[in-house]
């Protein structure tokens, strides 16, 4: 089975089942909302990839020169242009491209080995997922924990320190933080690997099915590979996650403070419920609702941050792939990658809105 399809099934089936459950159990307005959002995804992705299509083709520079270099003859250039369909009128190229998108034919890369883009994404997308999911866990976990603590220690040293910390990490350039963490933990302390998803030699023992190395190592029982993957995941996930945690810290703090002042919280305290239960079971749960909304917005930033993180840590993901292909004017690869990104963000955004309505029954669409 193609790794891309496997990944789609791994995430898509549970998500689809959950969405289906919500769809069936939810209100009429929620069902209408879900259908409308799904319908909106199509033109949204179409507009995005159309913009990318035309911008790439009007940008200066050409894929032929960047591929063949200065030595290529005119005949060679013409042959390449014809083979890639770049000598057709722009409007012909566009409608051919739309037709390919509708039939899920992502085409072949223009450069290098001209591999099918689905094969290249099948290698790259799982790598990016294996970066952004742990990063999201780090961001959320750190954000919720520190944000709640700052709220309950309001106007004390801990609160001020954590608020300062949140501003510092959020304003820190991701690549700079990555380089710094790599210098400290990989070079000076030698606690973590320098780069990559897995140890070089261990990689040769791992049978890849999904290209999600953690999943593959568990499926095959290759515990050495699993340990190596987790070990390699620490710094990249921390880099990306810590930067985003700044937002969640501040948001959680504000919402927990507000929630702690609500009547039901005051009455819970009056009934003698312990403060820890009041904070985490009452206040935090309800404070989570706006945080969930922000998660959807932060996904796009996660993907953007992944580009830099992947470069610093030699992580062979889609972000790095996109940068390489933009530099080479590989239109096909860039368009396909942007389409996948757009679809991904749209799906996460929809999921967030649905979760929001589940968490807060008062919400009606």
């Amino acid at each position, binding site marked *: 089975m193609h790794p891309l399809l496997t990944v789609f099934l791994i995430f898509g089936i549970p998500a689809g089942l959950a969405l289906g459950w919500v769809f069936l159990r939810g209100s009429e307005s929620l069902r209408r909302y879900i259908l409308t959002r799904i319908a909106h995804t199509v033109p949204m992705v179409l507009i995005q990839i159309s913009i990318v299509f035309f911008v790439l083709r009007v940008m*200066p*520079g*050409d*894929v*032929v*020169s*960047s*591929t*063949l*270099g*200065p*030595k*290529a*003859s005119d*005949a*060679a250039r013409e042959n*390449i242009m014809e*083979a890639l369909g770049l000598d057709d009128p722009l409007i012909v190229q566009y409608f051919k491209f739309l037709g390919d998108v509708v039939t899920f034919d992502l085409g072949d890369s223009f*450069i*290098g*080995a*001209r*591999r099918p883009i689905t094969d290249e994404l099948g*290698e*790259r997308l799982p790598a990016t997922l294996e970066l952004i999911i742990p990063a999201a866990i780090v961001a959320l976990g750190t954000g919720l924990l520190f944000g709640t603590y700052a709220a309950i220690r309001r106007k004390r040293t801990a609160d001020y320190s954590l608020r300062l910390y949140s501003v510092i990490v959020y304003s820190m350039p991701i690549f700079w933080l990555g380089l710094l963490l*790599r210098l400290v933990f*990989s*070079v000076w302390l*030698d*606690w973590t*690997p*320098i*780069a*990559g998803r897995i*140890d*070089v*030699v*261990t*990689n*040769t*023992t791992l049978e890849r099915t999904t290209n999600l190395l953690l999943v593959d190592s568990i499926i*095959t*029982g*290759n*515990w*050495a*590979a699993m*340990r*190596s993957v*987790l*070990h390699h*995941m*620490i710094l990249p996930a921390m880099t990306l996650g810590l930067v985003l945690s700044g937002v969640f810290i501040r948001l959680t703090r504000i919402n927990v403070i507000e929630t702690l002042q609500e009547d039901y919280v005051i009455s819970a305290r009056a009934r003698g419920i312990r403060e820890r239960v009041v904070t985490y079971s009452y206040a935090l749960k309800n404070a989570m609702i706006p945080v969930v909304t922000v998660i959807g917005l932060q996904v796009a930033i996660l993907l953007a941050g992944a580009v830099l993180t992947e*470069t*610093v840590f*030699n*992580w*062979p993901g889609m972000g790095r*792939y996109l940068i390489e292909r933009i530099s080479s*004017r590989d239109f096909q690869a860039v368009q396909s990658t942007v389409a996948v990104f757009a679809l991904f963000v749209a799906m996460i955004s929809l999921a967030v809105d649905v979760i929001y309505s589940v968490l807060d029954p008062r919400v009606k669409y």
Partner: protein
Amino acid sequence: MRRTRLSWRIIALLGALALVAAACGGDDSGDDTTTTTAAPAATTTTAAPSDTTTTTEAMMDDRTIIIGTTDTVSSLDSADAYATADWELIKAFNEPLLRFQPGSNSVLEPGIASLPVASDDGLSWEVTLRDGLVFGDGLELTVEMAVAQLNRLMDTDLQASAPNQVGNTLAIPYVESIEAVGDDTIRFNLLGPAGFFPQILAGAPYTIAHPDYFALDEMNLLPTAPIYGLGPWTITEITAAEQTVLEPNPFYTGSYPARVDRIIVQRFANPSAMADAVREGEIDVAWRILGAEAADDLKSVDGLTVETIPQAPIRYLIVNHADGFVTADPLVRQALAAAIDRDELSDVVFGGAVTPLLSPVPPGFLGANEAFEDAYQAPNLDLAVQLLTDAGYSESNKLQLDLGYPPEHYGVTTADGVLLVAQQWEATGLIEVNAIAQEWSTYVSNCTNGDTYPVCVLGWFFDFPDAENYLQPFIEGDGLGTMVLCPNDSCGEGVTATGIDPLLGQLLLDQRAETDLDKRAELIGQLQDVYADEVVTIPLWLEPEFIIYRDGIVGDSSLPNPQTLNIGPDFEFIYSVLDITG
């Protein structure tokens, strides 16, 4: 209820701690990579699940060398591949007809065939295949198979379908036909005499691709592993963006069999990660492309050896000879050549790490001289000012010159070097330079189309190690933007543009046809003198490359340049010379 909630929290906490402990207790053999890694349980790419608990321990006894590089693999089809990294891998799993002795770029040796014999008229060359040639999967090579595979280079339709079309550069311009003679001899019938043709046969295009992977009528740029050839290695695993794994070919009978159990070529997105990886022992060798600064930093690290490879890649300025450009005036071109201070470039920008290039042909190649030094004794500001004055320029009427460069493609140091050149020109007081930075994809076509820049910078690495390849591309055709021989679309072999010394084109043809090395060297010397006089291009410096390796990794001490792991001026990294000591 409370107890259940508490139980779940404890379980979650224990689970998280287990993950962290597992991660931190990572069994990365990369922590002690240098020499002690074990043979995997099987030679295939994966281990059976039941073996995994012992695989890592077993791996610790394996003789594996990990080579880091920032190069990417784009084509392993010998009828297409044109990049240095691709040729390096192809020559690992497949041996060319001829080869250069590792560590040298001048000593030709038999590869899978004998040294070639030329006919009296120099129009054909014959090589004889070695006995007992067998591909890594046991397929025996026949001369008919070899000729058929080589003719993929001559197939214009096949070449037209390829991204790199190496046949259009290294076969079709020189070869008329390739045929089998008898049971083991291949004859190359040339279009014209070419004394350097044996050097071309030592290139990756002249390897015999396996017919099951590389069909006669279609390209296969990146076959799935295992990839078998006639060379000392078999590619057992390849992920283009990550790593390539090579293991010894048991059927190899050539002169350079593998000396270790496995080579892993690990790809890095950026040089700094590769530098840190070799520093920390996650890789054993760092090769291409580390800058001078990074290499310098690593010199102080214990356990690492940093060596500079004798240079072959060059940096030079394309000078546009076409009408309508200020550089069409030979006085202007000569003034630009006279004003450049190459020693200052080397010292200020590269800390002395580069070698000034005083002729289009680098030192060590047949016929190389110091033509630009002889002509201009640069830096010679007085001469430059005189030439510009004679051309009609003055302090009130300065020469306005656009200078194009790519700020990143060749690294920051090349960009700095170009800007320093601009300053040196402006030091004449009669030139105002407009330095224009452009991203590579845009820049390369602008620089080579002859329509945009009067002067721009490019780098060059030879296709075959001969002076011809440092001269012909800049003279014939559109000369990569020099427009020397066809400034008005009048391209043709030997056609000389108006105003250009007609000797230029004629000498190029004469040296190409000459098979006597001494006479050829003399012709090449004359050609360089005319080249410098006409300022076809302006050579700047030889770009160094660095090899960094950990203690315990050695090359072959019986071959040239063992200190650079037998990488010579041709930049060929022959993996089979590598060994592990201790």
